[in-house]
């Protein structure tokens, strides 16, 4: 490896030896591409003319306080995921791979991978827990419409974590022809660094837009954290600024019980899916089952850079419960006419608390995805 792949004590590449050459090849391709103007030009062209960048920054008119929304919900595919699947898709091409594999929970990353598979001409296989396949039938059909094959996973808890296990197993046998298009800023090096760099555009645009619209930087930047790709992308260009960075985890049914996905708030140091980070686990090191109303935050580990930002004190991490997220989802719909993803509603829920305490603060919220995928669930929960 050319980079050390660590964020303080966290990160690394904890994978079976057989996968190390595949990670080294990926790191090499990523670093070479960073120095290649032709790569940047192709990626920026796709981001602008295919995906619809830049996305708008919207100042809320009716919600309390002074809240600005970075509108990744308006990106093609419906979430920030598209930014980085385009980047990784082009890298896979550079490496001469012909097949993409990916994991998905609710289906958003699976859909994003199916998009890039169709666009760039890859055979695409998506691993998805059987429970999630059942819950997200419409997204499964979306992926299939774009030519991807969805493989239901029966093992373990039959959700996102098990889909990642299965994708890693596939990759152990297939890396010569296959790129594992990991969906978040977690996993072994170089994924956390690479995904951050491909998502950095979110914060870079938002920072410039804040300066343009408000004339200054925001007081706080708030984003939801599951694996952490949308948050790290939004935070990255604000790290050196005097701006509060706040990550919002899924507090589920409450942080006092076991039904949450608050890895940084309730987990401890461990190694899962290739990286040392915070992990929700029992005293023997067995990985815990998690819960969140939003499938995208229902994950027992977190990207290693967030673990470091927490321990170094540069970012703060808080929780929002299912109920708080649903209330924020409803408030945004009623107040601003925007249906956001349940994941993004966690960030908004905390921003609303902050706005109440500090009405004069300018708060930038990462609205990471649109809510279409959650409408049926919202109907059941809010009716």
């Amino acid at each position, binding site marked *: 490896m050319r980079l050390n792949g660590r964020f303080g004590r966290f990160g690394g590449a904890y994978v079976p*030896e057989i996968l190390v050459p595949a990670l080294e090849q990926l790191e090499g391709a990523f670093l070479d591409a960073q120095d290649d103007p032709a790569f940047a030009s192709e990626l920026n062209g796709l981001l602008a003319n295919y995906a619809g960048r830049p996305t708008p920054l919207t100042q809320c008119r009716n919600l309390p306080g002074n809240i600005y929304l970075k509108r990744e919900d308006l990106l093609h595919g419906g979430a920030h995921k598209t930014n980085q699947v385009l980047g990784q898709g082009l890298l896979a091409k550079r490496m001469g791979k012909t097949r993409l594999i990916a994991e998905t929970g609710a289906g958003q990353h699976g859909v994003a991978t199916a998009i890039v598979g169709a666009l760039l001409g890859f055979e695409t296989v998506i691993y998805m827990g059987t429970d999630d396949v059942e819950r997200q039938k419409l997204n499964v059909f979306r992926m299939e419409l774009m030519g991807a094959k969805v493989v239901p996973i029966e093992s373990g808890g039959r959700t996102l974590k098990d889909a990642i296990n299965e994708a890693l197993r596939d990759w152990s046998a297939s890396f010569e022809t296959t790129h594992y298009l990991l969906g978040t800023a977690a996993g072994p090096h170089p994924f956390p660094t690479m995904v951050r760099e491909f998502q950095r555009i979110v914060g870079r645009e938002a920072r410039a837009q804040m300066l343009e619209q408000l004339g200054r930087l925001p007081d706080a930047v708030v984003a939801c954290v599951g694996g952490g790709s949308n948050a790290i992308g939004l935070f990255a260009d604000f790290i050196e600024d005097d701006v509060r960075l706040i990550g919002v985890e899924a507090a589920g049914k409450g942080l006092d019980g076991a039904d949450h996905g608050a890895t940084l708030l309730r987990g401890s140091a461990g190694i899962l899916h290739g990286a040392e980070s915070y992990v929700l686990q029992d005293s023997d090191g067995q990985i815990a089952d998690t819960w969140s109303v939003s499938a995208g935050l229902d994950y027992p580990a977190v990207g290693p850079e967030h673990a470091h930002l927490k321990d170094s004190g540069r970012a703060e991490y808080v929780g929002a419960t299912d109920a708080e997220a649903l209330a924020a989802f409803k408030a945004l719909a009623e107040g601003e006419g925007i249906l956001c993803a349940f994941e993004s509603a966690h960030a908004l829920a905390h921003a609303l608390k902050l706005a109440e305490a500090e009405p004069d603060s300018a708060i930038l919220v990462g609205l990471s995805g649109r809510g279409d995928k959650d409408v049926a669930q919202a109907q059941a929960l809010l009716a």
Partner: protein
Amino acid sequence: MSRYEAMFERLAAREEGAFGAFVMLGDPDLATSTRLLDAVVEGGADMLEVGIPFSDPVADGPIIQAAAQRALAAGAKVSDCFDLLARFRHRHPKVPVGILTYANIVMARPGFMRDAADAGVDSLLIGDVPSLEAEPFARAMEQAGIEPVLIAAANAPDAALRRIARLSKAYTYCVSRAGITGTHAGGQFDSQLIRRLQAAGAPAPVFGFGISRPEHVRAALSTGAKGVICGSAIVDAAARGEDVTELVRSLKAATRERLGAAMN
């Protein structure tokens, strides 16, 4: 002399390859897996690999995954595994025993290496710690008196093989081709990997992954490897209620054929 050294020396004198049997501790319960350890030794296993179950075993195929899940569902704890191993060591003072598990299990228990050593364990292989990340783990093992075992894959570049050779102590766990446990190598074992490891000064190379029949054992040993480890086939046979002692006996018999000729 370590138990591994004594075993390899004894087998070399008899021109035999080592036969390693893998058992998942706690599968389907502690008592049954205790009996299974005795059964594979009775069948002639020269060394044991024991799995401490982990909830998310990414290097394992469906058979070993299912075994880990059964063990965890039955409530197997890491401390139970150490107790079971300590009792095994009491019954079988000479059989080398190595643990195969995952990094999070090791990290979660301060003193894991010391507890393993106290239970009479000889070596530790951590499936998701490649040689790049292995240095601090290997140091902790050696301080506790446990020998590190690393996996050498056929696709590893020379620099990685040199690192693996330097860090591995008990033996080198060789993987011929890409994939996870239970992957059938179709009788193909890479003799070039064995030569490269020998050139790098690695400890005794032993092939794992895809050993389920006597012809696999013969093919693996014909590369110059010093032994084989059979995992999924034993776990599968035990889960089906088949005679595991007999299976081990038939595979062990294949280690007695022509090893001397192949090595020279």
